[in-house]
């Protein structure tokens, strides 16, 4: 049972203005690192989804700060900070972060959709 209020859930599903986007990169060997802009939690989830072809280039500490600042979601931000400290590798941390973000988006959608 989610403890999210409807207004909180709506905020979690919203898109931030372009100026507040999170800039990351997608790593593709040997093509290089390609800038990617993220504006919503849902997009972050898609970005972090594990792929055989490329890797997400992202600093999870900064992702946590961005989520806290733009979505006021301290709970998710703290989970990401903990993951960063405890995961055995950046790839493992990203995979775990993907699960966290995806679950949070699903939770918010469940609240909004009733």
């Amino acid at each position, binding site marked *: 049972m989610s403890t999210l209020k409807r207004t909180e859930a709506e905020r979690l599903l919203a898109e931030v203005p*372009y*100026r507040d986007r*999170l*800039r*990351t*990169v*997608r790593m*593709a*060997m*040997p*093509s*290089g*690192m*390609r*800038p*990617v*802009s993220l504006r919503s939690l*849902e*997009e972050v*989830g*898609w*970005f972090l*989804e594990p*792929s*055989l*072809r*490329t*890797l997400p*280039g*992202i*600093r999870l500490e*900064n*992702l946590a700060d961005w989520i806290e600042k733009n979505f006021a979601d301290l709970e998710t931000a703290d989970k990401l900070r903990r993951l960063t400290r405890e995961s*055995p*590798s*950046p*790839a*493992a941390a990203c995979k775990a972060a993907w699960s966290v973000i995806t679950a949070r988006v699903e939770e918010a959608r469940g609240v909004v959709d009733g």
Partner: protein
Amino acid sequence: MENKLYGFAGKILLVDLGAGTTTAVSSEKYRQWGGGHGLGSALFWDYCKDKTITDGRDPKNVMVVAASPFSGTNTPSAGGRCEVVGVGVGQYPVSWYTRSNFGGRFSATLKYAGWDAVVVMGRAREPVWLDIRNHEVAIRPAGKLWGTDTKTLQQKLWQRLLEEAGGMEGWYRLPGKRGPEYSTQKPAILCIGPAGEHQVAQGCLIHDSGNGAGQCGFGAVWGSKNLKAIAVQGSGAVAVADPAALAAARFAAKEHYAADFDNPDLRHWGPFGVPAWPVIFFDQPNEHRRVQACQGCIAGCRARFNVGYGNEVSCQETEWYSPHVIKWCKGDKQKASEIVYKTADLCNQLGLNSYPMGIGLDWLIGLREEGRLGPGKEIDSKLDWDKVGSLEFIRELLEALARGEDIGALVADGWVQGAIKAGREADWRSGKLLFTYWGMPEHGYDSRLELEWGYETLICDRDMNSHSINFIFWFVNISVIYGFKPRISAEKLVKVATDKMKPWVSGPEALDYATANMYSDAVMDMVRWHTFYSRFWKNSCLLCDFRWADLFNTNRPDLSGATASETAGEQVFWNAVTGEHLSFNDGIARGRRIWHLDNAIWALQGRHRDMMVFADYVYDKDCDTFEFPFYLWPCRNSAGEWEYTDLLHRRLDREKFEDWKTRFFKKEGLDPGSGRPTRAGLKEQGLEFVTAELERHKCLGREDKV
């Protein structure tokens, strides 16, 4: 030996489109340049009568499509590459004499037809295509072929050539020495699409489905010459000096350096031994895939699918639009995959270079979000920007870019030129439009961190796109990202790699990218080595950049790669094919000579050292723009020990980099005040024949400053 031109077909085809004539000249005179780029530069020097031109669309421009002695042989990952040279379109501040390169089977077929290179001069009065069937060559009217996309063009030409053969179903007819010869091999076609026809800077050359000479606007050059396509059919072979030695080298490469097909090492380090893997960067349409490779390749980095799209596309063209597509498809990867691969197909069909698109599109989206771009806005665009990520939008955008319409009109002469035209020069200077050098986008490796990439690009003519050193970044960083201990220690890696570079570098410090060492002579020597290596072994001999140079290789107990090795080094293949007795370092010296010839052409085009600069942001801002976690590279720490060190958060010091350039010019015998060739320097390189022309144009550097 009876045939002194082993490896060479023996003839070069001169095509004067203005006069409507074709002529054959012997390759003998040009053998000293290897093939590919060196051959192309020498031919450009001989046949371009006005080398001061700075727009590739000038009818005086001469363009060379060149094979190498390796083309059409089974030298691993070399038989199918092809080099293109000439004055480009769309670079900034000047479109230099430059180069591009593509794979497939064109260069091999050209050799089988008896030609080492095609030199294209002048401008045809009406659109034409070039029909090469062994020794018979014809300039033919393009008629309704003009206006077609590259896929339609190739299909129509294949069909036409079949019909002209008459008789046997599915057989092409070629003229032979003793009468007609027949082949089922489809003609190899190099062509332009609408982008080239409209002479836009993004116009490229396309061969088969996914092989493109993308960078530098050579499609626009062909468009300006009214040349739609070159179709080649050949039924000959390449005379190899020592076939047994070539076979032995190929087996040695397989035995000692290449991947074990049955038991691949998925954590392998080193480009030559990486297991075959399609170089595609988005989920493939489905699992029904066949491997596709350039002629003679040991890898097969492309794929063919059973869905009718995405065939043979690879690398950057499979990812640049994907972030927008994922958003449009709300995370549905299957749906997104179709759009991503169809987008790649569209680029190839329109003959568009996709490389600037990703970064260019980011910039345009930012302008739109700021309210500067849209209908009736500061930058007028009628495209439906609400649909970014859809196939519908990208089709409209690519068509506009290919035809120089809508937003395509703004960037038709290049993206930086477009920014300046729109009054947005500051966007380029600040890195908001991430075009780092020569009016080209950052490749994906920041010049403040990956030194060889930035430095080498500036002393050349375009984004250098040569990964030999860059593979260090990938193998190290991917290991750490996955939590593995690096397969090779930093100390061992730099030793093994720099041992290959001796005597051009003195030791491991050549790969120390620490801030304290980034402007050193040691790093400069490594950049020189890599520039000259690339100029000869990659761009002239046409070894594939994805496999060579193999500086380190975990298939070997000593971790030393195939490069320069006694059994499977570059020179072993070269000597087996050509019958020469070239050492590996002789090849580097040839690359140096070729670079100096190129530099002479750049001097005639007006190059001065003051032009050899990065966009301002490289000097003005630390590299921490993106949320990238780290950029590990071998460095010595304060105790003098080697370790993998994060290079983020630094910038280039303008003054120190200028001093680096000065030392580079001096070391190469160039005038440090201008970067231009000197009489003595040219003599040292055996390039006395260019001196008079440089002198006539007052482009010789001052001797007293060296």
